[in-house]
């Protein structure tokens, strides 16, 4: 099993009004063509870890980072490669299904148009290919020009997957992609993810232990910014190494959830604050 992505001694600190260490010395590996689930109580650094994997956390101010993330063997922090190119190779699907203010067609074609000069015919073919890949083509092929936001949330989340896949990333980051969906839509997205992990390396945050069991090959457990355990899914749930993991998977481990729940929320700096 080859490692597609790994972090080395990753430490991330928010340096706003209150200094908060969101990630503390985390080293973890994500294997190729596997789905790795990140679990843990809310606010314990899951999103921070995920966004640090393609440097998306940098759109927020006041973040300090040390350590390194390697995509294959290439470091993504100490590198000359332009940031957008790194983000193309490590795609990201946000928790809340978000359509870009474009048509369904152009939502998928957005990344393709940015990264290459495809002819119209090529674009058509690629858009169809990726919509099929997320099992959305049948549902939308008659209204490709409609605004993406008019889709139902379940369809929308699959559209987001198609949009991310269209630029052929090496790794796909999915931030609780089913949590905003009703059970039926969630199931269809899960099905899609299951198919996708044959071809892609997927890192997914989830709140649901059962979802992790159903989908994941490997589970990473974070607690208060620390890596507690990272293990094969069966091992993790059957024979957890850490006491903390045992508590957590048996449902007792949610202590600390309240104290740390605002860790990842950055106070937005706006003009309203000073004046």
């Amino acid at each position, binding site marked *: 099993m080859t490692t597609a992505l790994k972090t080395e001694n990753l430490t991330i600190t928010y340096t706003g009004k209150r200094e908060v260490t969101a990630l503390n010395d985390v080293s973890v590996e994500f294997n190729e063509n596997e789905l790795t689930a990140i679990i843990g109580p809310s606010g314990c650094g899951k999103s921070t870890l995920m966004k640090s994997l393609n440097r998306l956390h940098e759109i927020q101010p006041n973040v300090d980072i040390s350590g390194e993330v390697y995509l294959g063997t290439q470091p993504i922090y100490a590198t000359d490669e332009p940031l957008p190119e790194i983000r193309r190779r490590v795609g990201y699907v946000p928790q809340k299904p978000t359509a870009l203010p474009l048509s369904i067609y152009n939502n998928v074609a957005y990344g393709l148009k940015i990264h290459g000069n495809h002819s119209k015919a090529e674009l058509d073919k690629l858009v169809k290919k990726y919509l099929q890949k997320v099992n959305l083509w049948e549902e939308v092929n008659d209204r490709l020009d409609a605004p993406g936001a008019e889709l139902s949330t379940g369809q929308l989340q699959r559209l987001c997957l198609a949009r991310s896949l269209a630029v052929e990333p090496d790794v796909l980051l999915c931030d609780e992609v089913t949590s905003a969906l009703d059970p039926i839509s969630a199931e269809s997205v899960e099905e899609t993810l299951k198919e996708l992990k044959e071809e892609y390396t997927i890192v997914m945050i989830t709140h649901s232990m059962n979802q992790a069991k159903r989908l994941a090959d490997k589970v990473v457990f974070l607690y208060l910014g620390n890596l507690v355990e990272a293990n094969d899914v069966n091992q993790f749930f059957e024979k957890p190494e850490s006491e903390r993991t045992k508590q957590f998977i048996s449902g007792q481990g949610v202590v600390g959830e309240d104290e740390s729940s605002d860790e990842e929320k950055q106070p937005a700096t706006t003009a309203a*604050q*000073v*004046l």
Partner: protein
Amino acid sequence: MDRYTEQRLFGLLARASAALVVGVLAMVISVTLYRGGRVFLTDPAVMITPPGSRYMLDGGGGFLHAVLGSIFIVVPATAIAILLSLSTAVFLQSDYSSERTSEIINMFLNVLWGTPPIVYGVFVLTVIIAVGAQTSLFFGIIAIAIFQYPIMTRYTDEALRSVPGAVKEASYGLGSTRFETARITIRSALPGIVAGVIIGFARGIGDAATVLFTAGRSTQMPGGLFEPATTLPILIFEQAASFNAEVRAHAYAASFVLIIAVLTLIIASKLLAGKYARFAPGGRHS
């Protein structure tokens, strides 16, 4: 053009534009402060000296008439506007009107908000002609109140809307009437409302187009409610291009007084909204 070059170019353009805007506005303020301050600070008494008998010709005396005129017009006008705008804003909340009703009223308020002040001036002047009166303090007050009304209603409405529903529910839960609940809501929204009132006051004190034909262009001390009066903006407007350097200098000094007053008010309102926000359940959290 390569996409990274494009990115750098537009980043640079955005920066340059912001710098240009800030620079030009800083220039406007410094020119006013410098040219006005040079006159005003050498003789601050112009502000409290009544105008001489041939004021527009020789600039004798000072511009106390305009300072007082501004105060006598804008203070009562603001009081009237507060009463009207607060009532309208309360009516716009869901307790009193359906979504459809408040949407329609809001549409009219928006039109009023965008109406050029000169139109209010012409309107009140038309009324003055119709009733056979003359320009006076009184009509200046009316014109400014009309001008402030949509501005202050907008801020008040926004402040009331930001009060969390829980406050209202708690009040209704105790068996309060709508009127009593409205009073609680107003209290919760007070910082925002006060900030809006101050902004309305500042806009009122700075506007010339509404009062030009309604208060008049008097060069004498305000004599009474139905006597002609003048305000600082009118004085600046009238005297800025005068051929007499002395008269022109008074326009500069008056603009110094006006800009200090307006800036103080606006900054105070922003600070107030920021500072008290944490006391209001619906306010912005800082």
